[in-house]
C-alpha cells in the first residue's frame, strides 16, 4: 500500500498530508495533524467522540476515509473558537451549566448540538425531546446528560433571542421544522 498526498482543509487551513487509502479521517486529524479535539471512542459510529463537520454537516470521523474528505471543508471543535481561542457561545453555555465533566465527549456534543440549533435558525428552537433525539448518538460516560441538555437548551434560547449566539450561516433549504423523536 502506498501513501498518496491529499489536501485537507481543516478549520480554514489547508494541510498537505500523505495518507494510506485505509486511513480514516479520524486517524489523520488526530494522529497526523495533532487535533486532540477529534477522538477515537468506538470505531463504529455510535459514540460521537470523533464528530467533525464535513461540508458543514456532522459526520463520524471514524467512518469516513481521509481520501474522501480531500478538498472539502472540515470543522473540528477548535474551528468554532474565535481569535485568541475565544470560546464559542455554545461552549460558554457548557461551561456555565457544568456540562463537561471529563470532557472526552464534549467536542462531539458541541458540534452535534450546534448543527441542530443551526438547522432551526429562523424557525424557533428545538424542544428538549428533540435535543435528546439529536444527541442519541453521543455518549457521555460520566453520564452528565441532564446538564448537557440544559446547556444546549440555553444556547438554543440565546439563538432564538439573538443575544450572544452566532448568526447561523448556510442553513440548508427544505429542512422541516423539527423531527420528533420516535
Amino acid at each position, binding site marked *: *500500500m502506498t501513501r498518496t498526498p491529499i489536501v485537507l482543509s481543516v478549520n480554514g487551513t489547508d494541510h498537505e498530508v500523505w495518507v*494510506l*487509502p*485505509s486511513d*480514516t479521517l479520524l*486517524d489523520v486529524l488526530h494522529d497526523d495533524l495533532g487535533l486532540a479535539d477529534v477522538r477515537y471512542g468506538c*470505531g*463504529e*459510529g*455510535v459514540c*460521537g467522540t470523533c*464528530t467533525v463537520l464535513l461540508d458543514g*454537516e*456532522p*459526520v*463520524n470521523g*471514524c*467512518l*469516513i*476515509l481521509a*481520501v*474522501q474528505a480531500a478538498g472539502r471543508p472540515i470543522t473540528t471543535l477548535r474551528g468554532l473558537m474565535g481569535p485568541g481561542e475565544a470560546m464559542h457561545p455554545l461552549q460558554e453555555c457548557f461551561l456555565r451549566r457544568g456540562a463537561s465533566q471529563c470532557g472526552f465527549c464534549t467536542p462531539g456534543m458541541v458540534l*452535534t448540538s450546534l*448543527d*441542530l440549533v443551526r438547522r432551526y435558525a429562523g424557525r424557533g428552537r428545538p424542544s428538549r425531546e428533540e435535543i435528546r*433525539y*439529536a444527541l*442519541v*448518538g*453521543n455518549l457521555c460516560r460520566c453520564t452528565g446528560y441532564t446538564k448537557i441538555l440544559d446547556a444546549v437548551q440555553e444556547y438554543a434560547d440565546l439563538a432564538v433571542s439573538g443575544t450572544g449566539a452566532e448568526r447561523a450561516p448556510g442553513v440548508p433549504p*427544505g*429542512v*422541516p421544522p423539527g*423531527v*420528533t*423523536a*420516535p
Partner: protein
Amino acid sequence: MVAPAFDYVAAGSYDEAVRLLAAAEGDREAKVLAGGQSLMPMLNLRLARPDLLIDINQADQRPPSVADGVLRLPALTRHRVLLEHDLVRRRSPLLACAIRYVGNVRVRNRGTIGGSLAHADPTSEIGCCALALSASVVARGPAGERTLPVSELFDTYWTTTLDPAEIITDVLIPAARPRQGWSFQEMVRRTSDFAIVAVAALVELDEAANTIAAARVALAGVADRVTLADPDLLAGLAGGQANRNGDVDAAAAAIAGRLEPATDVHASGEYRRRLARVLVARALREARARATGEAA
C-alpha cells in the same frame, strides 16, 4: 481497532464501478463503498477484510423524483434526505417515518438507501419498509440493467442475491395512495440501536372506504433476513369491517406463530415471537386508523 490495509478507487460512474468489480472478480475481494456507515465499522472491527474498496459516492448526483405513481430514489440518497425531503415525506410517509429509527444524525448524513439494502441486515428498518411497500431495486451489472423486487433481493444474513459485479443504482417505491394507511413499530433497548423486532404495515381500504381491501406486513429481527408475512395470513382481514379488532389480533397471532426467531444476546426467540405478535397488531391497528382517517 484499525481497519486492515486495502486499496481504494473512486469510480466516476456506475459503469466504471461495475467494470472495476468485474475485473476484481475471482482475483481480489472488492467491496462497494457508498455511505460506509455499515461497511466502515465492519472494517474497523476487522469483520470484513476486502482487498479493494470501490467508492461510488461520485457516481451519481440525482435527487429523488416521482413519475407514474412511483417514487424513484437514487441508491445514493442519504437517510437524512429520506427523512427531510418533501417528496419522500409526502409520497412515502412510512419510509420517512422509519428513518427516524435508523442510526444517529451522523449516520443519517452519510448512510444511503442503496447501501442499506445491499448490506442486507436482518434487522434493517429500511429493508423492512421496502418489503412492506413492494419496492424494487434497479441493479446494474456487466450484462446491463435489471429490475428485481426487494422480495427477491435478500438471501440470508448480510447477503443479497445480486451477482458480485452488480450494483444497486435505484430504489423504486410505489407512491402512497388515497385510502391507504401505514405504520412502523419497533422495539429497541436503546433509541437508535438495531431493532430487536420491527414491523412495517400497509392497509388499503376499498372504494366504499369502510372495508379492508388489502394488508401487507413486513418484519425485521425475526429471521436471517427481513421477511414479508405470508399474505394468506392477512387474507382474513380482506372484506372485513375496518374496525374489527378480533380479525387483527387473529392475523397477528397467526403471523407470529409462523415465525421461528433465533435467540441471541439481545433477546430470546420466544420474546421476539411475542414482540412480533404485539407489534403486528399495533401496526395493523394504526395503519387501519390512518387509512380511515382516524389517525394522523
